[in-house]
């Protein structure tokens, strides 16, 4: 009985992904748009994060994560009410979990972040409501990627997840105390999500150029890997830090290098090299979810954070190098200063939905955090427009993780910290917004996505 069930699941997953890959690779060169696949009977899983108990700050998400699924129809229905905190399933994670779902929404993936079970990958069959049935057993990747792993799934039909890690960088100096460099050891691990097994893992020191290293620059973290169109390279985002060569301590303020990514062979995970942009000067690691996407044009688009000139979206071409002729500045596109892309999602046809904040944003009186906004970005036209939503100074999308792309419909959860909100369905073609089911909130809690 159990076996049959697994087969059915495998079939659904493979079939679903086949459907997706076929539709996606149908790139329309005429400039017209191709609708991403629509999954009939899809579940929409809503995730909520609880405010921490001990010295909790509203929106900190340190009290754990709950998930709850509804049908696509219910998600769209503004007369329906979803109370994930009252009725949800508690995801096994001490802090905000790092969640992923299959493209068809029938399978849910989690790697627990922190706590006694940190680093454990688990897979669930979504059964509606609070029903999430564990399948396939647990895989523990903590030995490679720590109990707080940074991971995402690849857009390869939900076959693979990739986790990355860097050991605490070590300062090296000569015997007389002259600074040499700061380096950590990077680990890249790929996970066979269908069979719930580790499929490959590699570790290496990744050196910057000698000149960069002499100044104290080093890779502090890796995150948000993405698979290229040829499916032979992974592009991994970086978070840079700088040692003060005079004292060996971390430097709080420093002049940033051009944005960097680490490129490794796939699926062997070997031969790490570094590519550097001359357009962006921020980190490319994102936060808790995706930060780079393979677009219909075969290029990879990658957002920057902590960028001196506000967030950019960079292009990595099919030669796996930064295309410095492509310049997209969110500051320029929106007419704001020091924008910061908190989360984003490529939704097909050169369109992206971007969650961001900027210098002029209001500050939450609850948490002191800057308010978040959502914009629709056209990467081809290099334009961006704020989406018309009921914004609130307590809207905080920094920890946001989940977007559902179902055809031209993009589902997002939208609620200020501690206040009720709704699922909204954004039309990726037009930017038009439809109000969906009501989301019941609790003081201090917030929603971190629709999956």
């Amino acid at each position, binding site marked *: 009985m159990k076996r049959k069930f697994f087969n059915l699941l495998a079939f659904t997953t493979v079939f679903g992904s086949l459907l997706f890959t076929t539709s996606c690779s149908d790139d329309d060169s005429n400039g017209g748009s191709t609708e991403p696949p629509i999954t009939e009977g899809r579940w929409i899983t809503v995730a909520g994060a*609880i*405010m921490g*108990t*001990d*010295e*909790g*700050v509203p*929106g900190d*998400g340190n*009290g754990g994560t709950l998930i709850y699924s509804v049908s696509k129809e219910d998600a769209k229905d503004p007369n329906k009410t979803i109370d994930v905190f*009252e*009725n*949800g*399933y*508690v*995801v*096994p994670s*001490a802090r905000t979990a790092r969640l992923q779902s299959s493209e068809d929404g029938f399978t849910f993936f989690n790697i627990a972040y922190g706590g*006694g*079970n*940190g680093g454990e990958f688990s897979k669930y069959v979504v059964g509606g409501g*609070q029903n*999430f049935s564990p399948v396939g*057993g*647990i*895989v*523990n*990747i*903590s*030995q*490679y990627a*720590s109990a707080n792993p940074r991971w995402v799934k690849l857009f390869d039909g939900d076959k693979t997840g990739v986790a990355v*890690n860097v*050991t*605490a960088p070590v*300062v090296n*100096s*000569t015997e*007389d*105390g*002259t*600074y040499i460099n700061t380096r950590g050891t990077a*680990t890249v691990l790929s996970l066979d999500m269908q069979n*719930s097994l*580790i*499929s490959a*893992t590699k*570790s290496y020191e990744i050196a910057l150029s000698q000149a960069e290293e002499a100044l104290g620059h080093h890779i502090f973290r890796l995150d948000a890997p993405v698979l290229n169109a040829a499916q032979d390279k992974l592009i991994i985002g970086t978070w840079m830090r700088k040692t003060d060569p*005079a*004292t*060996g*301590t971390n430097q*709080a303020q420093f002049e940033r290098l051009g944005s960097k990514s680490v490129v490794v062979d796939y699926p062997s995970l070997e031969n790490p090299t570094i590519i550097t942009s001359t357009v962006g000067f921020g980190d490319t690691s994102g*936060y808790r979810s995706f930060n780079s996407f393979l677009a219909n044009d075969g290029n990879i688009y990658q957002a920057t*954070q902590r960028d001196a000139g506000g967030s950019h979206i960079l292009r990595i071409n099919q030669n796996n190098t930064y295309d410095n002729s492509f310049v997209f500045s969110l500051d320029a596109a929106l007419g704001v200063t020091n924008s910061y892309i908190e989360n984003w999602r490529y939704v097909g046809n050169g369109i992206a939905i971007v969650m961001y904040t900027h210098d002029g944003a209001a500050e939450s009186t609850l*948490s002191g*955090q800057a308010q978040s906004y959502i914009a629709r970005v056209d990467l081809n036209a290099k334009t961006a427009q704020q989406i018309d939503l009921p914004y609130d100074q307590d809207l905080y999308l920094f*920890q946001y993780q989940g977007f559902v792309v179902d055809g031209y419909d993009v589902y997002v959860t939208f609620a200020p910290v501690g206040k009720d909100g709704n699922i909204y369905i954004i039309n990726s073609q037009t930017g038009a917004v439809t109000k969906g089911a009501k989301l019941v909130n*609790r003081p*201090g809690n917030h929603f971190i996505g629709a999956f």
Partner: protein
Amino acid sequence: MKKYLLLFALLFNYFLSFAQTGTIKGIVRFEDNQPATSVSIYIEGSKKSTFSDEDGRFVLEKMPYGKYALQFVSLEAENKSVVVQLNSPSQEIVVSVIKKEDQKLEEVVIKKESIKKQTEEKGFAVNVIETKEAGLRNLQTIELLNRTAGVRIRQNGGMGSDASFNINGLSGNAIKIFIDGIPSSSYGSSFDLNSIPPANIERIEVYKGVIPGHLSDDALGGAINVILKKGMRNNFNVSTSYGSFNTTQTNFNGLYRFEKSGFTVKSSGFLNYSDNDYKVEGDFVYNILPNGRREFLKARRFNDTYRSIGGVIELGYTDVKWADNFMIGFTTSDSYQEVQHGVFMTTPYKGRFTEADANLLNLNYSKKDFFAKGIDFDLQGIYGTRNRLVNDTVTGVYNWDGKRAIDINGNPVFSNVGAQQGPATIANIKRDIFSLRVNLSYSITKNHKVLLNNVINTVAREDDDEMRSVLERKFMGTRDMTKNITALTYEFTGFENKLKTSLFGKYYQQKLERMNPTVEVIDGVNTRVENVSKSNKEATGYGVAISYAILPNVMLLTSAEKAVRLPNENEVFGDVTENTLDNPNLRYEMSENLNLGFRLGTFHLKKHSVFFALNGFIRDIQDRIGRPLSSMINTDIQVLGFVNQGNAKSQGFDFEMNYTFNDNLNITFNTSKFELTTTDIYNRKRDLPNEPFFTMNAGVNYFFKNVLAKDAQLNVFYNYMFVDTFNFLFPPSANNAGLGLFDIPQQNIHDVGLSYVFPNKKLVASFDAKNIFDRQVFDNMGVQKPGRAFYFKLNYVFNNF
């Protein structure tokens, strides 16, 4: 012949002073100045006799003038004879008697009450743990504390592993430990509750919430004061034990006093060792296979060895004209402790260990009636160096079977953090410490007493890490702390000793200094500059303790304190490695603590005796120091400092009872229940996780006389401990699914033991079986503690040499 002569002399005296009579009044005290109660006083050759009362006082009235030989006889003291010449209407004498050390156990019970009573009836919520009996058994100091009402020890593994103390729901920095009144932080982790055996401890006082002035430190929620062996009588005892997990504990203590000069030599020592290789299993114990799958197993801990060795030698004078006690000594200790895992058991460590050592000079001086009658003075000082080392250099990843983890390529896995717990380190922390405690008390009259206490504590700390680069080691900072705490106490006893009150105020001062080297360009040259930042914090607190005896057996007790904890160095100055900024405006944490309880007993009915005590408590912490949790902190260069934003409230009760039958059956029971909550910014009361809020302890002790041989004694013990289930994550609603993973299951632990006192009363053998049903015992975050274990111990006592 001698007897007849004496009788003759007495009779002669009697006839000579026939016309006049007088009164002989007096006080009987032990050598430590505690009153000796129920001492039988009779006059040799006469039928006249009396008993000393609760304060050790006695009166013999209508005595004809003359010379008398007064005999003092007590179960608790050595017999003593004092000759008194009565030739005035009233003659007052003070008699010092020597406590008996090698008594039968039923006599110990009596002694226990007299010591406990003194401290426990002052009005404070305090438990006095006598270690006399435990010292003969296979019990550790930590276990004794854990069996005390309202006290819970959270320990990260077996013997010697890091312990955190929880008293009535408050833990961590809120609880302070003292050794003879000096903060134990001065002694370091090599001379602490893990290493000092009960045999070398006189008694332990556990103060809950309200801490008397003579224990001076910024203890927010409670204090544990360990009083090391005192006494002035020649003795030497030694014991050794061996048991499960290759655990061995040996200790000795002894004292020799030259009767004539008062020159005294005192020494004690301990040696503890354990492999701690007990078995663990459960949700967090598994090997990770090359493909990431988990293989659950029952594993033996393989990196948990503990060893500690230490000793104290003191030389000086006791019971001389100019001092009751004047000792100069040297304390040395050294410990080695392997660390098997972090907060959770999931990742086993190999090769991580810590070492600590301390070499300290001590000075002790005490004198009653210092300069003038009624003024008591005592002083304790320690000075020396202590070192701590954290070593974590093994880069390989290990599984719970003790073998290297192998990856999917067949290669050994290397740590993803550098070493076992974090970056590879050989961190040395050296601290120069100085601590001086001065107590001065003045008994204005019998009913009024004023006490002044002052403790100065300084720590100068230097850090180094051999694994860091030469460059980084050049730029490591230093830290200095000076704490100065003064307490003024007024004690009033009234209404025929029915009312006892103690009123105190405390002044706290803490100076912190931090030096971080940096580089400045001076004359175009990079120059190392020492950057010094300072902070000076002050605070005041006050409190009161009252006890009132409604009936001799019914006593009401209440105590309250506004307690404070000063921010520590990291909290004031921040920490670059933890991305925290300094906050010089940080205030102290404050807690309003209240106890209200009663003591009933001891009631005697034929052969039955019973005693009850109940204490209800509230601890209300405000301005709790915490780090503002911000998700941005993870992702940005911006840093935040500690702030006074938190709060916590604990309320509950402790209940204790003791039943004795015919002096050979003793049953004890205690239970403690509390609710620990925090109020968030929405004014919601929320339970704080990972707190064992409901615990019970029960003990039965039966004593057989003349077993196997005449005058031999057999003691049989049974102990039961209950800890109710608790969570380390609270779900927002009862309707949620996916729960259960975060529960620590209910625990029921049974221990048994017996000890046999050989007829010569010098040799005691004891056997203990702990956790006899081999139940899983948990602590912090589901860390498992030892299963079934057996221990055997021999004690030998030399006396009167």
